[in-house]
């Protein structure tokens, strides 16, 4: 099936020019033209994957390991005081394009970037409800099982299927519809 037109895919295909500074079989890394700070970088899977939960495990590991290296590079090259690694997943989280992007944002004091929040007041009961719900759901998804966590991290592509639960596609497709 032909994927919908995606500006990120066009960048990957080089039909739209970009400031690319890294590329391998599965990923590219580019600079944002209008970054939050100079050096604002995007680490992007080449495969058209709209939301983070759909990214296969080996690729999650790869994306964030590259992000970590880019972060170190930014520290070194740009002499910044910090970096944020940031994923916006879904429109409500600020995702703008239907293609997963891991952002690495160079940080300086008072740079106008706001990634902070006001703590929300919750009652003990509300907290317990959330705790239970999340615990249950993680148990259902299955990653919490010992058998898996004690193994070496699956890096091979064929290990992906391990934890995609039933009905995942439908659920994710519904989530996708929220993306412009």
């Amino acid at each position, binding site marked *: 099936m032909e994927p919908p037109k995606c500006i990120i895919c066009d960048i990957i295909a080089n039909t739209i020019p970009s*400031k690319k*500074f*890294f*590329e*391998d079989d599965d990923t590219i890394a580019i*600079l944002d033209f*209008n970054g*939050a*700070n*100079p050096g604002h970088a995007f680490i992007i899977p080449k495969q058209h994957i709209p939301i983070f*939960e759909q*990214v296969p*495990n080996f690729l999650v*590991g*790869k994306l*964030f*390991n*590259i992000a*970590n290296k880019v972060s*170190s*590079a930014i520290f*070194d*090259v*740009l002499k910044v005081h*910090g*970096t*944020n*690694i*940031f*994923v*916006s*997943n879904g*429109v*409500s*989280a*600020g*995702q703008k394009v239907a293609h997963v992007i891991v952002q690495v*944002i160079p940080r300086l004091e*008072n740079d*106008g*970037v*706001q*990634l*902070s*929040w*006001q*703590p929300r007041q919750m009652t003990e009961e509300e*907290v317990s409800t959330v*705790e239970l719900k*999340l*615990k*249950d*759901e993680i148990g259902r*998804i299955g*990653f*919490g099982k*010992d058998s898996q966590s*004690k193994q070496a*991290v699956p890096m091979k*592509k064929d290990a992906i299927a391990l934890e995609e639960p039933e009905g995942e596609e439908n659920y994710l497709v519904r989530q996708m519809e929220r993306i412009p």
Partner: protein
Amino acid sequence: MAQQEMSEEQIKELQEKIKNMSPEELREFQKKQCIFCQIISGKVQSKKIYEDDKSIAILDINPANPGHVLLLPKEHYAIMPQLSEEEIAHIFMVAKTISNACLRALKASGTNILVQNGVAAGQRAQHFMVHIIPRMDKDGVEFRLPQKEVAEDALENIRMKLEEYVGSGKKILQKKQAPAIAQILQKKAEGAGEKQVKDKGLDSQSTLHEPQGAVLQGGSGLSKIHVGASQNPKEPEAEVDSSQPGIKGEKIRQSRSGKKKQPGKKARAAKGGDKGQEETAPNLDDIARLLGG
């Protein structure tokens, strides 16, 4: 808190003491000072929603939204570059699962995944962590990334430097570049150490989780995030934390390089079939080794 009474001499004495510690002693010492290590060991209560042998996920005491999760490696690492590739891969796979659970269980319509490297980036705790924040439309959480103009030649200059640093093709980091990172980290760590000790002398408000509280930018909400977790009464030793980073950066990696060599090699051998991984794997171990020697 007790650290307010610390005199110059006491601070010096403490620094001396820390300097003379073996890497193992230092490590134990750091763990004792770290509230999150105490949460991991169960000494401090938390709302734990996930745990495996390498990582643990708890609810943030001062959440941006209900279901705001802190995901931590069980090992005490202050900064992300100290984690091995395997550990990073593991942590973010868990993050993916938790993000998924937030979407499903809490009917969130999105999530943010956030890492804060350095005080300027909002890091408050001396324990590396990943935030997973469930999001809803108009939930009042405002993350702002301004768009700044960068001159074309300046951007190209950055691009070239990053390309050289990160390397094109498969080898993400060249060995020759490792010392540069090591240097930076060390410098950074030393700098942080000095600065914090100074802060402790001058600014009595500093706490375990706000090592440089005085310089937080606009951190109205953030500055309190983890402090809630430290409501435990065992804080009087917190002052000692101030001198950690300077030494930590160096010695932790020393002890790691000794310990971690074996698993690192094994893991690499095991995934020899996957060429992409094979060629990108060794860097952090190499960095660790260089630091150790």
